[in-house]
């Protein structure tokens, strides 16, 4: 048996919910360790649409969700400005969509207090030249775009800055139980296989689509619907603001601008396995057909990849609704002592990315009650350090596009990155699509962690552009070897992982240019660099 740790609270799951809980605990002075089986954001938290809901989408069907979303929207814009772009959003009615819905929607927004302002069609078309010229009505709402990668990273980093601990690449394989009481968790290191035990007063299960698996470990029946949705990424960002279809929420009716791309979705199909990230070409084609009603040139635009994630929808009892869209997306906080007579375990699931803070607040309120802690929540007031790096990089000689990105991105790493940029070579852009320099990559490699291109991607956007890492992956890997950040074996392993992962997401959209890009990538890696397909297991 390996190491043993002790803490007050163990949080299972490094998604947005777990990260939020960890930070709230830390701010209230409660000792906590977060355990994540892969990298932060491995689950749904980076496999979603990235829409900071204004609540308008849910106004008609789910008033409670709408109210929560709107309030959290306002709070997050103030407290996590670095991960949110206040793009605003449009709700657009297209011909043939139900006319009567518009009035219903408008009065619901009004009741809730969500500002929905009608704008002239001409103005909307000027702002969004790719929008269908035949739209009938356009409203503007305070939607936003969230960078879910930076959000989960920054919230966790702030928790760590307040004393919390984070263990990534550690899977919870068992709950430690003594007489109807959860005493802690047993975790396994994903790289070495080594097992460790963490003892705690309380365990918070925030494992997203996997919450049921955790409950199963201690034999608790726990029904969760995993509603899988597909999202497609366009090679460039063609809209300035979020574009929603003004109708009863359905498939394929939202376009969210995210940095230099546009993300389009989504669908909903119930699946059993939380690890089911499969992608389906027909599903994608169905989406594009729908999406055409908002953006007519959708078929002419290049798609660079697709991905999927599952919404964990909690249900007290099981029903046969297969769409999953009618189950409440509200949050579910479960005290297993009350529900199952098992002490020391709470489960928090459901909800939305937008409402993660509120979910955390409610969870930690319950934790405090159990631990007898009097501190109240402050996460609605306390800022997370901004990502903007004003005053930095002015003197550095580098491509303006790369500089502009850094100024919006570098955040707390700005000093480190600027120093390294001044040294010379590191200002060379190694990922051209997303304008990432070696300096940024270097800053994203952990001190004594593994060299992992996926982790670097989530921290820098390396390889997220149209070429999907065709060129930058091996540049990053060679730089890492040259600079002593990885051995040749480690770099090869990382390359193999990265290429497999990128290829999977490209495969389903691979027609036209993207098909050629996949071939080019294969030619470079398999022919020029002599890598064999499937040589390593995908981690």
């Amino acid at each position, binding site marked *: 048996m390996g190491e043993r740790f002790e803490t007050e609270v163990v949080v299972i799951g490094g998604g947005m919910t777990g990260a939020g809980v960890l930070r709230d605990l830390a701010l209230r002075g409660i000792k906590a360790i977060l355990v994540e089986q892969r990298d932060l954001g491995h689950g749904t938290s980076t496999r979603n649409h990235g829409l900071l809901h204004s609540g308008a989408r849910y106004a008609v069907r789910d008033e409670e969700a709408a109210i929560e979303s709107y309030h959290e929207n306002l709070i997050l814009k103030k407290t996590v400005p670095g991960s949110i772009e206040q793009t605003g959003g449009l709700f657009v009615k297209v011909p043939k969509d139900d006319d009567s819905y518009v009035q219903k929607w408008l009065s619901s927004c009004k009741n809730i207090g969500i500002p929905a302002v009608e704008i002239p069609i001409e103005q909307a078309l000027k702002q*969004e*030249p*790719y929008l269908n010229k035949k739209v009938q009505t356009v409203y503007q709402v305070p939607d936003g775009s969230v960078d879910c990668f930076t959000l989960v990273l920054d919230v966790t980093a702030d928790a760590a800055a307040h004393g919390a601990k984070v263990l990534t690449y550690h899977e919870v394989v068992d709950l430690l139980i003594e007489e109807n009481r959860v005493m802690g968790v047993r975790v396994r290191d994903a790289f070495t296989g080594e097992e460790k035990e963490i003892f705690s007063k309380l365990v918070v299960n925030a494992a997203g689509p996997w919450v049921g698996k955790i409950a199963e470990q201690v034999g608790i029946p726990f029904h969760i619907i995993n509603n899988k949705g597909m999202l497609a990424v366009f*090679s*460039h*960002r*063609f*809209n*300035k603001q979020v574009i929603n279809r003004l109708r009863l929420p359905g498939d394929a009716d939202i376009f969210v601008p995210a940095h*230099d791309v546009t993300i389009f979705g989504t669908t909903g199909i119930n699946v059993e396995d939380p690890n089911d990230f499969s992608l389906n070409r027909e599903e994608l084609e169905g989406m594009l057909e729908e999406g055409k009603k908002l953006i007519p040139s959708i078929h*002419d*635009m*290049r798609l660079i990849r697709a991905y999927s994630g599952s919404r964990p929808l909690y249900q007290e009892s099981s029903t046969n609704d297969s769409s999953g869209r009618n189950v409440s997306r509200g949050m579910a906080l479960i005290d297993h002592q009350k529900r199952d007579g098992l002490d020391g375990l709470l489960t928090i699931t459901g909800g939305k990315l937008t409402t993660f803070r509120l979910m955390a607040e409610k969870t930690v309120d319950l934790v405090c009650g159990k631990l007898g802690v009097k501190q109240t929540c402050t996460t609605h007031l306390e800022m997370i350090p901004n990502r903007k790096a004003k005053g930095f990089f002015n003197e550095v000689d580098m*491509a*303006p*596009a790369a500089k*502009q990105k850094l100024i919006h991105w570098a955040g707390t790493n700005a000093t480190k990155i600027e120093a390294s940029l001044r040294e010379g070579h590191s200002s060379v*852009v190694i990922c*051209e*699509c997303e*304008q990432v320099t070696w300096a940024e990559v270097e800053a994203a490699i952990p001190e004594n962690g593994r060299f992992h291109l996926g982790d670097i991607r989530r921290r820098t956007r390396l390889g997220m*552009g*149209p*070429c999907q890492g*065709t*060129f930058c992956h091996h540049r990053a890997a060679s730089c890492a070897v040259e600079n002593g950040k990885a051995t040749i074996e480690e770099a090869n392993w990382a390359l193999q992982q990265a290429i497999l992962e990128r290829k999977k997401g490209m495969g389903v959209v691979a027609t036209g*240019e993207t098909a*050629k*890009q996949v071939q*080019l990538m294969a030619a470079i890696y398999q022919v020029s660099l002599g890598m064999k397909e499937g040589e390593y297991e995908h981690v």
Partner: protein
Amino acid sequence: MLDLFFHEDTFEKCLKCNACVVNCPVSNETFDFGGPKHLGPELKRLMDNQQVIDDKRIELCTLCGNCDISCPENVHVSTLTAYAKAIHSELSGTKFRDVVLSNAEFVGKLASAFAPITNLAMGMRPVRKVMEATVGIPADRLFPKYRFNHFNRLYNKKTASTKRKVAYYVGCYATYNAPNVATSFVKVMEYNGIEVVKPEQKCCGVPMFANGQLKQGLKNANFNIQRFLEYTRQGYDVVVTCTSCTLALKKEYVSFLQTEDAKELASHVYDADEYLRVLMENGELNTNFAPREEKARYYAPCHMKAQGIGNPAMDILELIPGYEIQDTGAGCCGQCGTFGFKVEKYDVSMNIGNKLAKTVNDVNAEYTVTECGMCKNQLDQLTDQPVKHPMEILAEAYLVGDKVLANK
């Protein structure tokens, strides 16, 4: 204010393969240039319907078009770099010097009104030193000569009555600096029984595009399109002796404006030698050339290569009995329109040009043949070999051939 949003979606096809970078004469010469891939499709992707990025390195792009021909995906790279230039000059302002250089026509008119004085002034070092210091035109740079008897004074025919009729797009260089090219062309057509008219016209706009004066350039484009369509719709063919102008009329107007009119005009435009080749293919070409025992070398301007029509000048010149002409296979000349006239770009221009000069000198011949006036300017500066336009050679060959016939 220029509308900084423009619709040009070929950037989406870029595979990032770098073929354009490898073939860009400027990228090959200096690391200070961002390169076609970045300043073309990559920047457009980041800017389309989003924030504008002003990258001053775009000044180094010469719009030679080598990136376009090398791109396997048919990305309109140089159209995109031209827009980047327009954005840069819109946001950072255009140097007075670049306004002057971009306005070849205006300068041409002005300069040839005082031709002997201009030529002298341009040749005199003290004056040039002042010009370098004040407007940034390098003192060592040789300038094309301006002619008092420019072509507009010499020729103004507006209608033709022959079977084939040509509407001649003369271009600024042949109008103001080399009227001999224009008159030679008219003669070559006469020897083929074709009457040439000179419709009202403005500078094609290429120097404006290159200096970021996109809006002005497109105004000229629209003017030329309308004037020339009046002729093509009456059965005239549009023929051009300047390769940059030809490329503009054939390709750039279409990519920038994307209008039906631009496309319609483009389908009637021919490079002069290409036109002669069409006559030859139809058995209509007068081949009564006097033999010339001469050795020449041909230098293909970038804008000729960019048209993708092969090597029509050599195809025609080779018909002259005894005439030997060899392709130098050289790359870009480095003058690139107005590029080499700028003091900060002089070194890059000269470095590119020196490679050319070496290749030119390696081919043993009496003189160099090229169509582009700007390339001629660079060749004049860097080699001690005479430079001729194909039309000048053909006109002479016809003239002598005629005399020989008459004497028989």
